[in-house]
Each structure stands twice: as C-alpha cells, then as structure tokens.
C-alpha cells in the first residue's frame, strides 16, 4: 500500500529525491550519513581489510569471522582454518541422504544429485576455506559431472572426486596428482578407465586423452615458462612448446590397463528389468591395474624413459614424477590459482613469488599446497591498498561463488534438509551460467588465457577469464536468476523427498531459505542496511557515490519496521538486488 501511494502521486518522487539528496549532502536532521558512523574510521578500515581477505580465502565474511581475523591476524587465522579437519565429505553426505539405496528410484543410474552435493559443499559445509580452495582446484583438475553420467553411481563418483580435492587441498601436489589420476570420475571423464594397450594385430592404439590433458592442463601447459609465468622465447623470438605429439603417444602407454575396483561386490536391482549393480563403494576406490592390458612397450616422453616391460606401478611413478618435477608446474599452477582466488591478470612478480614457494616451501619440500595457498592469499598484491584504487586490479566474481556467498552470508538452510539445488541453468532466460563441478569440458567454464575481444583488456593484452561467461544474454539472465530467490529463497520441487518428481506437487516451494533477521531489522534504514551489505558482501568496496545512489533509491520505498513481513523481505531483496548487480560488487578487488 505504501508503494501504491508513492506511485500514484505525481511529483512525490521528485520531492523525495530532493529530500534524500539533501540528507546525504549535509548528513542532516537525524538521518545517518551514508558513511557508517558506528565505528571509528580506523576500525572500519580494519574490518574492510579483514572482509577483503576473507572473501579471497573463502566464500563469505561474517561479522564473527571479521572479528576473528582482526584479533588473530590473517596468517594465524588462515593457519587455524587449514589445520581444521575436513568436514563431512561429499560421498558420505550423499550416502547420508539415502542416494546409495538400490530401489525403484534407480539412483545408480543418475549423476545429477552431484549438483545437490556440490552446492551443499560450497554453500553450507562448515570449513569454508578448504571448500573454497577445493573449488579452485576443481577448475584446474576439471571433471565435469555431465561427462561421468555414463558411470554407475555417477553422483558418488563425483562425490569421491570432490573428496579427493578437499582432502589434499593443503597436502602435496604430487599426492593430489596421483589420486586425481586414479580417481574413477577422472578415469571415466578422460578415458583412463578401460584404456587398453596397443594391439599390433589389429592396429589398435592406446587412448591419448589423459596423456595429453595431464600435461596440457594439469601440470606443465603447452609453452615453456619462466618462473614468473611468462613464456620462454627461443632464438627466433618464438615461444617454445613443451611437448610434441610423440610425447603424448608415448605417455599414453603409461595410462593403459586401468579398471574399476569392484571388490566391494554386487547387488541385484529391485525391480524388473533386474540388473546386477556394482555396490556403490567402488566409486571411491582408486582404479586398479590389470597387467594384461597394460602396455609393455618402451615409452619416452619429456626426456624420461619407461623401459620396455616396466610394471605399471613403476611406469606411473616415473610419469608423474617427471611431470611433477618439470619447472613449469610452479608458475603454471600458481598463475591459475591466483586468478581463481585473487585477480585475473596477476603481475609476473606475484606469480614468481608463489611459484618459488611451490618449488620450495622453505623446508625443502616441493608442491606444498598449504604453503602455496598461504603465499597467494597473504601476498602484498592481494592485500595492499593499491589494488583498491587501481583501475585494473581484481577479478569478476564467478557466478557460482556469488550464489555461495549469498547462502553463507545469510546462513541459508534447507528447511527439509534435502538441499536439492539443481543445475541453475535449465532456462537461458534466468540462468546463473555456472554450477559447481559442472564445467562443460575439461577446459573449465573459461580459459585462463581468455582476453575479451573489443575491450580495454584486449588493447593491454590483459587476461580476464571469467569474462568468457559475460555477454548480452548472460548479464540479463543473471539478474532474472537472482529475482527467483532473493525474496523468499530457492524454490524446490517436493523438498521433503530426496527424489524430484516430474510433476508439480503440493509441497513445491522455497526450501533453501536465507535468514535475513539482521537485515529485516534495518528496513526503512537504508543507510545502515546498505552499509551492512557493503561490509559483508563487498568488503567495503562500494564507493561512497554508489552507497549514496543506493540509499537514495531505497528511500523511495516506504517500508518500515511496522510493515508486513513480505513487504520488509521485498525491501531487503531490493537492496540485495542493487548490491549483487552492481559492478563494484561483481568485480572483486
């Protein structure tokens, strides 16, 4: 009703605009100024710095976390987070939901529950730093869920893959590389699973997919690199490639003979037609070697040699050690992790500092991931004030990270506990454009070398990977996607069931719901509300002009403390819509 009065009274808006502008200009008569006055500036700056660090290191920054970082310091707080045990894993979470049951629901034929699992993991599981790092790793060692839908118990295979990333997030790169190589989801995705040795009679050759991509994408890349990530140049000024097709064809022999480990046995499916189904446990067992299918040919790659007749286990060790020891790995991995966590176009010096830590953590260990991620997050380029005033520093927040941030900031929870957040890209009209663990190919959602054409970035050759997702359709679609849940939460089909019926049910409705208690208390107080969102969501990176603009706009909404709950929720959602669509929020510095 408040709204109708304003809308129906010509001229009222102009008057309100004038008043609001006046209030901001002079900070006048009882209305707080847009710059939050509740804390002295030094404290506010410290809170902004803490929030900025938290939003690099994890998905969100709560008031309690900001206080903890401020009291402990960045480094000690991060050490504490890295020392936490990994919380409930994805595989166990899926089992806990009941998706391991063999019944008429035929979960063994499905993969899509990995969406539920992945969204829960990034939006709600307690150890946010480990999950944030695992998400970054999932965009480097990519398995796209749709690509393993051919596996029995595909969702559990994706769960086991995610668990490998979480478990090793602060371990050693070499261990992670081996566990990923033998993970069954990766095996299916890049065809190591079932890969057979050559057959001289028929001319059949080993599958080359994993051999190529483990070099190109997971370890060394295509060009020889300096420690700062820039390409080494040959005598003629040309970049030098790291490997040839011959290296691929030879290395492919190492990855032959791998099969699933079915030692946990089989069960009969419940209804006709009955099948013999592998028990779900096989999805978290590393693939096993069948020596009869493993190539015994000599293999020569990257200067290393696997002699003819070498056993498969030894061959794998030679291959992975060779890749791990290659001087490219540090800068190649460091630059991409910096891009995922901090900025799109890091300076060569930043890459070099992190790569140096990868090469040696100071105690003689190569590939210490805890040290690498600490180096990334605590680097001066990530933390210094210069990045806040630069016109180029930062990165576009990934769409899925925005959603996870919303969920964590407002303690979103599943009312029925089923957490059925599907792939939010069903319709082009209101899609997020991204979903965790659902990259369309091993090349991830975007490329680390992507430079948006016809832009200032193209002129300066600055990479901006996330912009590969930005276009005239997706920018509008994202706003429509937000409108679907900002007011009342995410709509779910039959939230009390672990299955999703095809037809509508009477219980369909919002199930993943935010707790806006603190924000609802600020309805009618746009200055306080916007300042709160600026701290929690933006680490204070909304400019004072933008804060003023948002406050002015919200001042037209007459909702106040005595308005109905739905009116107040709409008010909060409007404020969130402004913040989450504002370019100063979208580009995280």
């Amino acid at each position: 009703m408040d709204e109708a009065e304003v809308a129906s009274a010509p001229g009222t808006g102009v008057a309100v605009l004038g008043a609001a502008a006046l209030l901001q200009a002079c900070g006048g008569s009882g209305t707080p100024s847009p710059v939050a006055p509740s804390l002295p500036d030094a404290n506010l700056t410290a809170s902004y710095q803490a929030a900025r660090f938290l939003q690099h290191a994890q998905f969100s920054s709560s008031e309690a976390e900001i206080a903890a970082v401020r009291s402990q310091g960045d480094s000690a707080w991060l050490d504490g987070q890295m020392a936490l045990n990994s919380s409930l894993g994805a595989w166990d979470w899926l089992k806990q939901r009941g998706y391991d049951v063999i019944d008429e629901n035929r979960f063994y034929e499905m993969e899509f529950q990995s969406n539920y699992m992945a969204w829960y993991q990034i939006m709600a599981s307690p150890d946010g730093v480990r999950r944030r790092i695992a998400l970054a790793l999932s965009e480097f060692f990519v398995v796209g869920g749709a690509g393993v839908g051919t596996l029995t118990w595909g969702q559990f295979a994706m769960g086991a893959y995610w668990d490998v990333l979480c478990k090793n997030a602060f371990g050693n790169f070499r261990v992670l590389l081996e566990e990923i190589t033998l993970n069954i989801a990766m095996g299916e995705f890049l065809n190591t699973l079932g890969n057979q040795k050559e057959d001289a009679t028929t001319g059949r050759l080993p599958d080359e997919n994993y051999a190529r991509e483990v070099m190109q994408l997971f370890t060394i890349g295509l060009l020889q690199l300096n420690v700062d990530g820039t390409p080494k140049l040959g005598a003629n000024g040309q970049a030098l490639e790291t490997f040839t097709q011959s290296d691929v064809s030879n290395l492919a022999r190492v990855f032959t003979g791998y099969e699933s480990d079915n030692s946990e046995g089989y069960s009969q499916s419940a209804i006709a037609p009955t099948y013999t189904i592998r028990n779900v446990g096989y999805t978290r067992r590393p693939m096993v070697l069948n020596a009869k299918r493993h190539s015994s040919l000599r293999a020569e790659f990257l200067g290393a040699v696997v002699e003819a007749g070498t056993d498969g286990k030894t061959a794998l060790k030679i291959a992975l050690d060779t890749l791990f020891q290659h001087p490219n790995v540090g800068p190649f991995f460091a630059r991409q992790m910096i891009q995922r966590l901090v900025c799109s176009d890091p300076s060569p010096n930043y890459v070099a500092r992190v790569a140096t830590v990868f090469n040696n953590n100071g105690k003689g260990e190569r590939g210490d991931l805890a040290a690498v991620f600490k180096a990334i997050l605590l680097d001066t380029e990530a933390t210094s004030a210069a990045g806040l005033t630069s016109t180029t520093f930062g990165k576009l927040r990934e769409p899925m990270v925005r959603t996870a941030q919303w969920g964590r900031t407002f303690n979103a929870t599943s009312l029925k506990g089923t957490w059925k957040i599907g792939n939010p890209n069903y319709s082009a009209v209101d899609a997020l454009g991204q979903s965790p663990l659902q990259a369309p190919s091993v090349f991830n959602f975007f490329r680390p070398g992507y430079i948006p054409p016809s832009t200032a970035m193209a002129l300066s050759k600055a990479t901006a990977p996330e912009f590969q997702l930005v276009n005239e359709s997706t920018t509008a679609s994202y706003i429509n996607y937000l409108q679907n849940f900002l007011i009342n939460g995410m709509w779910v089909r039959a939230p009390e069931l672990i299955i999703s019926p095809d037809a509508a049910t009477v219980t369909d409705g919002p199930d993943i719901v935010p707790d806006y208690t603190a924000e609802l208390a600020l309805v009618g107080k746009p200055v306080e509300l916007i300042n709160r969102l600026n701290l929690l969501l933006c680490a204070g990176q909304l400019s004072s002009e933008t804060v003023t603009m948002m406050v002015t706009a919200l001042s037209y909404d007459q909702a106040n403390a005595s308005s109905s709950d739905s009116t107040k929720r709409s008010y909060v959602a409007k404020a969130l819509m402004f913040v989450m669509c504002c370019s100063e929020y979208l580009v995280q510095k």
Partner: protein
Amino acid sequence: MEHSDTDPTRREFLRRTGQATLTGLAAPWLLNLSAMGEAAAFASTDYKALVCVFLFGGNDYANTVVAYDDASYAKYATIRAAGSGGTNGVALDKDALAATLLKPTTALPQGRQFALNPAMKGLANLFNTGKAAVQLNVGPLIVPLTRDQYNSSNRLKYPLPPKLFSHNDQQSVWQSSSPEGSTIGWGGKMGDVALSNNSDSLFTCISLSGNSVLLAGDSALQYQCSTSGAIAVRNLSNNFFYQTEIKNAFAAMLQQPRKHVLENEYNTVMKRGITAQAKVAQGLSTVQLQTAFPAANALGNQLKMVAQLIGARNSLGAKRQVFMVSLGGFDLHDYLNTKHAPLLQQIDDALSAFYQATVELGVADKVTAFTASDFGRTLASNGDGSDHGWGSHHLMVGGAVKGAAFYGTAPPVSITDTMAPDDQWHVGQGRLLPSTSVDQYAATLAKWFGVADSEMGSLLPNLKNFGVAAGRPDYPTNLGFMA
C-alpha cells in the same frame, strides 16, 4: 571406457529428465595482436549471411565423410575394425552407407567415392540435389606442407600452426589464425568491412553460442543472443522494484560507465544487451516461421533463432551478417559408435530444417552455412574411439554453394609411416595433413560475402602464402565452391 551396469538408453533418458546440462557456455578462444588496420567498406544492396556451424571437440572425419569405393572402404574397414572383443571396432558397415552415398556431378579421380554417415540422410540429399558440397581435408596451415616438411627441423622455412592437436588452441586457430588469447577473428573482420551496410552495426556479427573469437573484429562486436531471443531484464519491467524511481536508479546503475576497466566492460555489455533487446524483440515479433525445426536439438534451437533473425533482417537493418552456432560433444575418445551418430543426426536435422527455412524466407541463395571444428581425429582406432588429429572434411550448405561436388583432394586411406605416396597425407595414425588451408576455405566464403581481394590479407594473415601470387597455384585462394 567402461560400460555401465544397466541399459544405456534408459540411463540417457533419466539423465536428460533429471537435469539439464549447462546452457549457453562457450568454448575457449583467444589472441591476435595483429595490426588494427582500417578496413575499407564495400557497398551492397542485397542481403547475404554466413553461418558458421562449429563442432566442438574435434569431429571424427572418417565416420562423417566415409570412404565408400571398394578399395578405400576395405582399407578403412581394416584400420577401423581394431576394436575389442571381436567387434567391428569403430568401422561403419558398408551396407548402411548406400542410402547416403554422395553422387557428385563430376566423379572424383581414381574412382574415389564417399558416403555421409548413415545419420546424415538430409545432408546427403542436399548434396545430391546441388545444395551442398564437401571440402576435403581442410585444416590450419601457415604454408603448404608435405609430410617431410612437417617433420623438418627447419621451422623458419616450414612453420607449423601453433599448438597443434590442442582443443582450445585449434578452435581459436580455426577462427582467428592464433591460439588461445586471440581477440580478432575472420568473421569479425568480415563484419568490419560490412558494417557500413547495416543501419545498426551491432547486428552484423551474432553468436548463438556464447563468446567466439571468430566474430570479434576491430570495430565489429559480437552480439550474443540466446535461443529464446534477446533476454530482457525482468525487473526493469515487472513489479520487483515497484517504484519507478527505484527501477530507474537500478537501470542507470547497470549501464553506468566506470573507470575500472573490468567494471566498465561488464556494464558496457549490460547496456548493449538492454538496448538490443528491445530492437530484437520488436524485430522477431514480425517473423512467423512455418518450417518445423527438430525438437530437443541444441543446434536446431540455435539455427531456428538464426533463421528468425534473418527473417527480421529488414527490421534490424541488416544487409550483411555473420552468425555463429555450435554443437559440442565431438571429443569421442570413447563411445564413438554410440555417441557419434546421434550428434550427426542432430546436425542433419538442424541443417536440413535451416535450409528449408531459408527457402521459406526467400533467401536460400543468400545464406551459406559451413561447418568447422577443432580438428579431425585419427583414422586409427583406440578400441572404441579416436584421438586428436588435424585436417578434416567439412560441409557447405546453401543455394549459393556449387553443390553436388567435392573440393580439395581426397586423402589416401592409410595409417602407416612409410615413404609410399599413400602415407604422405597424414602425420601418423591417420591424422590428416591438410591439403587445403582454413585461410583458403575462409577466403572463398569471404569473396562471396563481398570482401575485396585487397582486404583478404587483413582477414587471413597466412593467405599470402597460398595461391598463384605465392607461386602455389595448387593451393588456390578461391576454392570455387561458391557461385
């Protein structure tokens, strides 16, 4: 590959109904630092459009345009039958190919014959009725190469395209002559020279497939439309904000220029989208296509929207347009037998309907569709699939295509590494060494589109190494497949 425990047909069904896959996500691209030359415009009174149909993942050429004459088929079948467990491996049955035999008006030398994959009956019909043609063994080249030259260590004299066999890079090289990081493509450069013919330059280069470097020019931007048309920001028209003042403030915020380059680029795209949406919605409202497009066909959905946009060309003020559509899933290291034909069926259904739509719109000879892909694949089998290759066969479809014909040279069917002539057109395992370059292929399309010979070098930096002027009349700059 490992086969599932249950019925794959049912599994496909369940996965489809269970969850949609990502929509609208583009593959990678990227980096040409070539000089930003001022392109000369050309004047046109008629309408012409090019439609790039990109097959992401690297299409398996050998099971798409299939060796059919007895001698070639026998070699193909022997090589490809290298499967496991006494199966046929990845060879197609010859009997199944008879219905899609291609019948060119002029037969190929040495009795060579080809059939399309049995799933491609519509395109075989278009070929045989003169509306489609096949370009044999085309791929990126910097200079013409023999296999010896490919193996030469003299890379200054015999340069190779960068990062061969790599998906993301070869996608980019096909579209822009440069690997990942490239920012200028030949479709966009065509747009640059055609811009002045269009009253709204934004509708010159349109992608239905997300960001593609093909369509990025110096001046020409790529407008990215969805299969649902232009997407409106709902809350600029619905009651979410309720008060007009709040709505206006939100609209202004979205489109505000920014000093920070990333922020500014985001808002620039947003503003372009909001502006274009109203025009596209208006234009599309005037188009009523009767042609039926296949349901549940990702490529068909894109081509249907392209046809509708072409139908709206007068409303959008377009005389020259370049479109990009795509289909993914071709990286079939595994499951070639079960997954390839359904993909080709989608192409066949979609392109057949699209051609019919251009007939309905009266522009069949004004619209030319052509295929492209990361690379071809090996002819050798890995048991149930094939691996990354180089040259491939591609299709051109439309009333202006001089159809019922093969262009280029049919490669020998061989995977051995000998000095024999049959082994000089692959670089191992049947990875084709292209005998026609992408630059020649693109130049032929560009010439028809209206690009002057003097402008070709700015589109296609390696074209200078081909054709009569380069002393290589065996690699002509106009392949002759366009009327």
